[in-house]
């Protein structure tokens, strides 16, 4: 017990303690940033804590199926963004990105109007983590699994 601690071991312990403290600090900072560092609000955030009308915010969520409509002028789009907890109606005037579809994710940049409608001046399509070939897109998950099994 009274043997002098080897310099090598002392260094190891020192470096590991420093590393643990550093990573802990970084994690804490990232955790503290969790609301500020988010790229967009989801509809539940808007419902719980509406931003003042006219402030530039981003709204992200799923485009509800059956909600997508184009006005008579051909360039104004109306749809509803939902996250399963709340829904926010959105209007957008301009060209929509290719991946923008009902039932898929979207991030709208714009302002919340006084009537609760979100006026977007830019739309970003959000891709999900699923990668499916075109031929399999129309199938249900069960059919797709069978097809994949057969090709193995």
């Amino acid at each position, binding site marked *: 017990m009274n043997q002098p601690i080897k310099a*090598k071991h002392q*260094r*190891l312990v020192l*470096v590991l303690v*420093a*590393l643990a403290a*550093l*990573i802990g*600090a*970084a*994690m804490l900072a*990232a*955790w503290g*940033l*969790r609301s500020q*560092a*988010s*790229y*967009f*609000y*989801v509809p539940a955030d808007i419902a719980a804590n509406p931003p003042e009308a006219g402030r530039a915010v981003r709204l*992200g969520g799923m485009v509800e199926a059956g909600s997508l409509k184009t006005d008579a002028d051909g360039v104004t789009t109306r749809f509803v963004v939902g996250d399963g907890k709340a829904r926010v109606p959105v209007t957008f005037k301009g060209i929509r*990105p*290719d*991946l*923008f*579809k009902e039932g*898929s994710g979207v*991030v709208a940049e714009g302002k919340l109007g006084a009537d609760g409608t979100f006026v977007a001046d*830019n*739309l*970003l*399509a*959000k*891709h*999900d*983590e*699923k*990668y*499916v*070939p*075109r*031929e*399999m*897109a129309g199938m249900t998950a069960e059919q*797709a699994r069978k097809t*994949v099994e057969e090709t*193995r």
Partner: protein
Amino acid sequence: MPLLLAGLVITGLSLAWGLVGAPAERLQGDSVRILFVHVPAAWLGMGGWTAIAAASLTELVWRHPLAGIGARAIALPGAFFAALCLITGSLWGRPAWGTWWVWDGRLTSMLVLLFLYLAYLALADAANRDGDGGSRIPAIFGLVGAANIPIIHYSVLWWNSLHQPPSISMGKSEMAPEFLWALLAATLGFSLLFGAVVLMRMRAILADQQAEARLRRRAMEASDV
């Protein structure tokens, strides 16, 4: 160089498969093919810094002479792949998202990784020029920078981000097997290439140091006479 050869063959085959053989994706169409370069590049960009951190730990604790050289050898290819990941991601983002760049958690932390690499390269270069014992400061920087790696990984889980969450995690995949196998093969191929380049660079750095030591010795002998 069997490592280099294996890397070249596997990378070539998997890219041919991914770029020509794999089907188009249901929503992304042909732009899904960028995946086969983007994901290996991201993996090596992050894996490279993890290796730098491991080498830095070895350098600081055990003072192994090869550790500092290994870390220096990794930094340049690591920076290359981090940049490649950002460039291919940007090219994919334009058609898929409708924008080249956004400041969301994943993209920003990956850009920070590239800047860390550039800083490491500059620091290691300066420390090397200062002479012996100078590899300790880059090693400390290599460990400090490792804090960014978990942030990159968890950025899409902690924060709402435009970048999608991981498609592949332990034991399950949201990716159809047509894409998955080509992607895993490409990742293996690029990793072998990365390893081969790192070994070659380590050899070059060692040869450099030996040549310099010999020159110095000769200069000493000449001044003695």
